[in-house]
């Protein structure tokens, strides 16, 4: 029965010894599939590939040439949320799904659920061209083992109306300021707690917040208190990117947390807005193609991972979604397809200095990453988010 499998997976997690790798990624308890050896070569395609993905992540413009080249027919299941992805991938994809384009807030849930297995980056030639950060980011690489191939990313920016704020705001303080009461919007997502934690890590250094996703009880309480103070100032917690766009367009809000996508859409519609990454830095999201533990079409899966990592496809997807590619060679392709887009999407940013300002989404776990189990896990974040919104 299902629950039996859960218990077994949980037991594996709890009994596995923490290894002490020095490779990139995070050093934590060993996930249940860590000992599964990834394949060392890509064999003949199986003719099929079943994907759980964000809507449009296999757009015809790059999916059709893939099928033509490899003979792998794509069967797509677009998911509406990270949580839907996690539930579809339960039990290693159940033999039904081969890959998932998971976001950082879902990754560790999939990895520690035993739903995805290690991948061999040697089989993806373009992996060498990835920006160093995305070769082994902490949300998909644990103890040096890669549980997927990074795809695209984007920062969570501060979006503001230029009429209300003639001078570019330099701090996230504007969304906690009672002077802007009733004009603020933030995403309706428990992971938003990390944004407040990041702000506090700079404004209240005495709390000692190092990583906004690894919060002790004291740090967590302070963050929740800040968000509860913020609630009366909020006009609306937005759910869909399009909701935020209409809130700004109709003048219901003047400032808020957003993605570059909203800014680009609003500017295209002639709205007087701009976005910025304030001095405290920002959180960000990043997607990863992950391989289901029970994938039945692994060769087609590797061919797909290889295909979407190429500069051309990376650039196409970036422009179609307003995302930033992880392949550093995609910049030239982006410029060729749409001049100026490389800089617009921050795809020309390289090096640790820039990525240090972006704290990428990862699932909060009880494990603080230093062996202690005193951090607040994601389930508690969700409960706290309910009480914040009241």
């Amino acid at each position: 029965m299902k629950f039996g499998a859960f218990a077994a997976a949980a037991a594996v997690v709890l009994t596995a010894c923490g290894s002490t790798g020095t490779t990139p990624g995070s050093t934590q308890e060993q996930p249940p599939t860590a000992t599964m050896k990834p394949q060392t070569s890509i064999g003949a395609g199986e003719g099929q590939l079943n994907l759980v993905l964000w809507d449009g992540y296999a757009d015809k413009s790059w999916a059709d040439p893939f099928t033509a080249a490899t003979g792998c027919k794509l069967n797509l299941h677009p998911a509406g949320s990270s949580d839907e992805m996690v539930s579809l991938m339960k039990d290693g994809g159940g033999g039904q799904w081969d890959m998932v384009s998971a976001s950082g807030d879902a990754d560790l849930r999939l990895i520690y659920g035993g739903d995805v297995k290690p991948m061999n980056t040697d089989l993806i030639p373009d992996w060498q061209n990835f920006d160093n950060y995305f070769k082994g980011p902490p949300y998909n690489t644990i103890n040096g083992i890669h549980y997927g191939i990074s795809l695209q990313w984007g920062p969570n920016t501060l979006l503001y109306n230029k009429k209300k704020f003639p001078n570019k705001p330099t701090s996230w303080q504007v969304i906690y300021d009672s002077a802007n009461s009733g004009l603020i919007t933030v995403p309706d997502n428990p992971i938003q707690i990390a944004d407040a934690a990041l702000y506090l890590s700079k404004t209240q250094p005495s709390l000692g917040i190092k990583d906004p996703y690894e919060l002790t009880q004291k740090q967590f309480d302070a963050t929740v208190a800040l968000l509860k103070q913020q609630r009366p100032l909020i006009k609306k917690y937005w759910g869909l990117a399009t909701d935020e766009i209409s809130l700004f367009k109709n003048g219901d809000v003047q400032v808020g947390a957003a993605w570059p996508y909203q800014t680009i859409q609003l500017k295209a519609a002639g709205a007087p807005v701009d976005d910025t990454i304030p001095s405290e830095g920002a959180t960000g999201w990043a997607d990863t193609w992950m391989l289901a533990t029970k994938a039945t079409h692994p060769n087609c899966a590797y061919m797909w991972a290889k295909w979407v990592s190429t500069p051309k496809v990376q650039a196409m997807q970036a422009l179609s979604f307003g995302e930033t590619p992880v392949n550093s060679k995609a910049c030239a392709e982006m410029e060729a397809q749409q001049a100026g887009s490389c800089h617009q999407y921050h795809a020309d940013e390289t090096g640790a200095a820039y990525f240090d300002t972006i704290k990428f989404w990862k699932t909060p776990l009880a494990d603080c990453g230093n062996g202690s189990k005193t951090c607040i896990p994601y389930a508690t974040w969700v409960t706290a988010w309910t009480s914040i919104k009241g």
Partner: protein
Amino acid sequence: MSSVETVRRPRPKGGGAAGAQSLFWRVSWLRPLVLLTPPVGWFVVIYLAALVTLLITAFWTIDPFTTQIVQSWNLDNFRIIITDSTYWSIIGRTVGIATLVTATDAVLAFPFAYFMARVATRRVQTLLFAAVLLPLWASYLARVYAWILILNHSGVLNWSLQSIGLPPANIGYTNTAMWLVFSYIWLPFMIIPVYAALERVPESLMEASADLGARRWQTLRDVVLPLAAPGVVAGSIFTFSLTLGDYITPILVGGASSTFIGNVVYANVGIANNIPFAAALSMVPLGIMAVYLFIAYRLGAFEAL
């Protein structure tokens, strides 16, 4: 009871179907068994089994590290709901708005249904019926989004207010907006049962009331209203329970403090993967509806359905 009916029926002659018929004739309990097994089976397996599973799950918890279900019996989920004031305010808000919506719909529906049942000609009646039911043909989401276009900052409402020189009304993304939208969306579910109840009031009673010297409003108060009350209660079951269980309208037109019970259930199933807590919380509207239906039953609402 059924055997008596069978006796009265003429006996069929010949053919395969007749073989089955004569079997039903000889074994009197067979026909009700065959007829009732599918619906009762459906009811037990699909409906009751789901409820029982829900009830059992509510007493489990999840492991906070792996978020897997731990099957150990405890009352933790219920303890959290009772001790955390957040859930009280969410339940209070949900029940409060559901009550307000029900009252609003009853007040709006009664004169409309009265006109439809007792005043309008046959032709006008048909037209009004179509008008009441027409919105139900359009998507729920489209109708809610239409209200967003009306109520938002630069929407139709503020535009109209501005053009007659009044200050803008900032009711977009508030609980007021939720009340308006819910009242609009569920109104047909109140009008139809009230109409059905009013139509069944015999003309003779009203004539008798008039003959005995009652004025029109006295007849309305002492004859029509009491007879229509079960219809209003029946309609209120729909408007109340539909509002109580909704979670889409709060997401779309609600503001910063517009969380409903349904939203918390949704967040716990979808985001937190905490199905036991979601199950425990969904016991609350289940309990509220059980009490409500019992009261409605005592008021005779089920005769008007």
